[in-house]
């Protein structure tokens, strides 16, 4: 396609109900040639179009090491996501991308990894988590902390079980409000994080979640002794083009769609809080 805004056609091949308002969709490109050249890295995003409704931005939920299909986990929040939730297996959508930067795993080598996810933020962290599990030998200890509002809102239940089974991986789950069957922890992510008291030495923290959670998690991490250049986060912004042209996702002169969405906190800290 000559036009950089033209999407490639893809088909919904599988829909997984994660929670009451989150579904995971698996897409397959209709043109296999397109898919061969469609290489992404954990942390990047794509733009999905539902024809007749519009486009929206989503992160890849599966890493490049598991590329049987393209997977996105999508929460129903607005016009486009609502239309996506209406999709059925076999429906056609448009995909363009991949856009943005990725998690700098080459810089994480031989380090401990600490993943902290809040709410739907787990969708953005699933691909780096699974990528690190697939290249397990490169890193030391892997710790995952995932918090959701309630036990009903926990995504990827079956995958989490598999993550727990992997060797030398520590998974902690927490919810804001538990119920009788809930056997894991109860409490807000930053508080649980402090209770876990992970060693800051030789560890990279990778965090994603709602703005308030990120704010307090950053505070907790710095109290635990994490330095700013050992914290990585991925930002969410309204984007339309993904190409650094439409002019809305900037923080100062950086465009989240091109210079982000993955940022070291040391860089982010010096930017004004316009995200």
């Amino acid at each position: 396609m000559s036009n950089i805004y033209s999407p490639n056609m893809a088909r919904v091949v599988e829909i997984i109900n994660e929670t009451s308002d989150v579904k995971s969709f698996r897409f397959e490109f209709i043109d296999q040639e397109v898919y061969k050249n469609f290489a992404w890295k954990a942390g990047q995003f794509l733009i999905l179009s539902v024809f007749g409704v519009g486009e929206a931005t989503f992160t890849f939920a599966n890493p490049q090491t598991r590329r049987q299909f393209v997977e996105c986990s999508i929460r129903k929040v607005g016009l486009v996501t609502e239309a996506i939730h209406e999709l059925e297996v076999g429906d056609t959508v448009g995909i363009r991308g991949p856009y943005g930067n990725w998690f700098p795993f080459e810089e994480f080598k031989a380090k401990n990894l600490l993943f902290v996810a809040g709410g739907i933020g787990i969708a953005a962290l699933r691909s780096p988590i699974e990528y690190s599990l697939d290249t397990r030998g490169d890193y030391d200890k892997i710790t995952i902390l995932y918090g959701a509002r309630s036990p009903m809102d926990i995504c990827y239940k079956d995958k989490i079980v598999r993550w727990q089974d992997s060797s030398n991986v520590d998974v902690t789950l927490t919810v804001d409000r538990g119920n009788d069957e809930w056997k894991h922890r109860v409490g807000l992510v930053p508080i649980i994080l402090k209770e876990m008291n992970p060693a800051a030495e030789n560890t990279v923290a990778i965090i994603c979640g709602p703005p308030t959670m990120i704010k307090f998690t950053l505070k907790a991490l710095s109290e635990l002794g994490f330095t700013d250049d050992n914290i990585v986060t991925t930002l969410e912004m309204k984007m339309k083009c993904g190409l650094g042209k439409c002019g809305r996702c900037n923080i100062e002169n950086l465009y989240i769609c091109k210079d982000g969405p993955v940022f070291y906190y040391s860089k982010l800290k010096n930017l004004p809080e316009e995200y």
Partner: protein
Amino acid sequence: MLFVLLLQPTTYNLQQKFSVNLLLLGMSIMEYTITTNNLRSLINDLLKEHIVYAPKLVSANTVLYKTIVSFDEYDSTALMTNTSAKSMIYPQTNRLFEFAKTTDGMVLKEDEEVKKSIIFGCRPCDAKGFSLLDNLFDWKGYRDESYFSRRDKTTIISISCTAPQSTCFCNSFEDWGATSKVGSDLLLIPMGDKYLVEVVTEKGKKITEDGKYFEPATERDAAIKQEIEQSVAELMPKKLKLGEIKENLDTAFESPYWDRVHLPCLKCNLCTFVCPTCYCFDISECPKGYSNGERNRTWDSCMSEQFTKMAGGVNPRSDSKRRFRQRVMHKFRYHVDNFNEYLCTGCGRCIKYCPVGIDIRRVLEGAK
């Protein structure tokens, strides 16, 4: 001697003389003159193969770039059109593709070839806008064909300004004057009953190559040109110290200055829509029936609340202050950091048409 001889008024066989001329002097003479009558004939000739956009009076006090069918529709008296020329190449609603659900699945149809066009009577400030857009739409490894397909087929014939308005400040920009050529393909400088023609690009040269309406410029013409430049420069308002302003803006993000200065702004999209350089856009869907539709790129404005509002309701630039600051900062700081040029041509439309009289010159000068 030969030089003087060649400058005798010629009325016939110009083309041949030109080629001789160029050869003999061993350099390309890129300046011609054209009489008003010949200009009329030239435009009417060009109309046969091109769509010609030119300033046209559409209602009292409103002059806009419109397709013209003859030279007579061109309004030469208007100093500035109400909206900028950007919509000729970067239309407000720009169809990216059409889609249709067929038995073979979803089919995309991109627009067919665009026709050759000419923007005639463009002011240098509008023409400069295109040179800024060119850089933007070919940035970070993505070349935007939906823009360049039009841009490449458009020849811009600018006519230099003879007198600035009280809102103009194009002289604040480096190397800028009434006869600046950036972005134009041909620049016409009015000199009484004729125009001095400066050829800027290959595209412009193509138009003069035909040659039958053009005469080579004389030394006297060049002198008159200098006089005109001089007299227009004198009429220009005082220059903004943009270097200083940029330095001030670099540290002004958190400044309480923005708390005050945004107050009169009512957050309409006017300033960004009439601007020759504001490029921000939205990609939107226009459904036609159940299975067909088109996807458009439409102008969007950092002034509107919806611009950055996300589906969940979070809005990084939710209040008036942040949006106002974004516009100023983008034009005079962020864009400079990325492209080393200001995202402004000093046309002054945002000052002239702002319903609440916000003067970006004053806003910039006060920023600390």
